[in-house]
């Protein structure tokens, strides 16, 4: 299935940011899973393994996309990795609250906030 979701991996101190672009629906499963696997590899050896899902450039999330995010979150939690989200619009933030994803994902207004929280203190 063709996906309109593209995911770019960005390594920052203490975390990996998955910068998503486009639409998060069921077709996002393949690119998001691939990016998550790459993130896990990039985090090898880190004491705290933190994955930031950046939604700044995402313009549509549906229920099947929520399921994809649930799948990634389940994998991360099973491996004791921390998941954060940034850049959600207030509407999708509301959906993360309704579904309770925000109970299990650290929420930040933007990716800079998420990264600042991640950065090791001097």
């Amino acid at each position, binding site marked *: 299935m063709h996906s309109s979701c593209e995911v770019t991996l960005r390594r920052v101190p203490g975390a990996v940011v998955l910068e998503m672009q486009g639409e998060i629906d069921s077709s996002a499963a393949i690119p998001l899973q691939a990016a998550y696997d790459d993130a896990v590899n990039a985090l090898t050896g880190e004491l705290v393994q933190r994955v930031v899902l950046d939604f700044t450039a*995402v*313009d*549509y999330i*549906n*229920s*099947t996309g*929520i*399921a*994809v995010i*649930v*799948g990634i*979150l*389940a994998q991360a*939690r099973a491996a004791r990795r921390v998941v954060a989200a940034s850049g959600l*619009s*207030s*509407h*999708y933030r*509301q*959906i993360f609250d*309704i*579904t*309770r*994803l925000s*109970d*299990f994902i650290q929420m930040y207004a933007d990716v800079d906030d998420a990264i600042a929280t991640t950065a090791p203190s001097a």
Partner: protein
Amino acid sequence: MTAPQADGTAEVLATFAVASEPGNERIALRAVATAAADCGLSADQLERLKTAVAEATMNAIEHGNDNRPEVPVDIAVLRTVDAVAVTITDRGGDRAEHADKEIPDLELKLRGEQRPRGWGLFLVQSMVDDMEVSTHDGLHTVRLTMRTDGSIRAEGAHDAQQL
């Protein structure tokens, strides 16, 4: 076109159909957003209505019409004196509502005790002020209502910047 009346008569703002192909819910939500743009909904309400329409249309395409492109999903946008309503009709008849009837529980999903999917109907019900389901002559209609008097949903009071 009939103007909305105090007795509840609705004004039909738009009627259209989409083919039952995955992804066509985007067409539906855009058309509904255009039709309902000047009906007194807040930006937050309009976003919630769009999400509900998209999810209900996905259900109609997949569960009502079995993803058969030749079978249309019919959509109407209506306005009454105090609400905007959207009807979404498929040819699924009096079907048992599919597994979305299962109330999604994120903790169970994270433990693998519930499938990751199953959020659709839950989202529809969470987004609108009212949802009614009816069946007639093989047609299955979901009616979504968003009130415009501003007194129903506390969270509707804050207009939000949306994508």
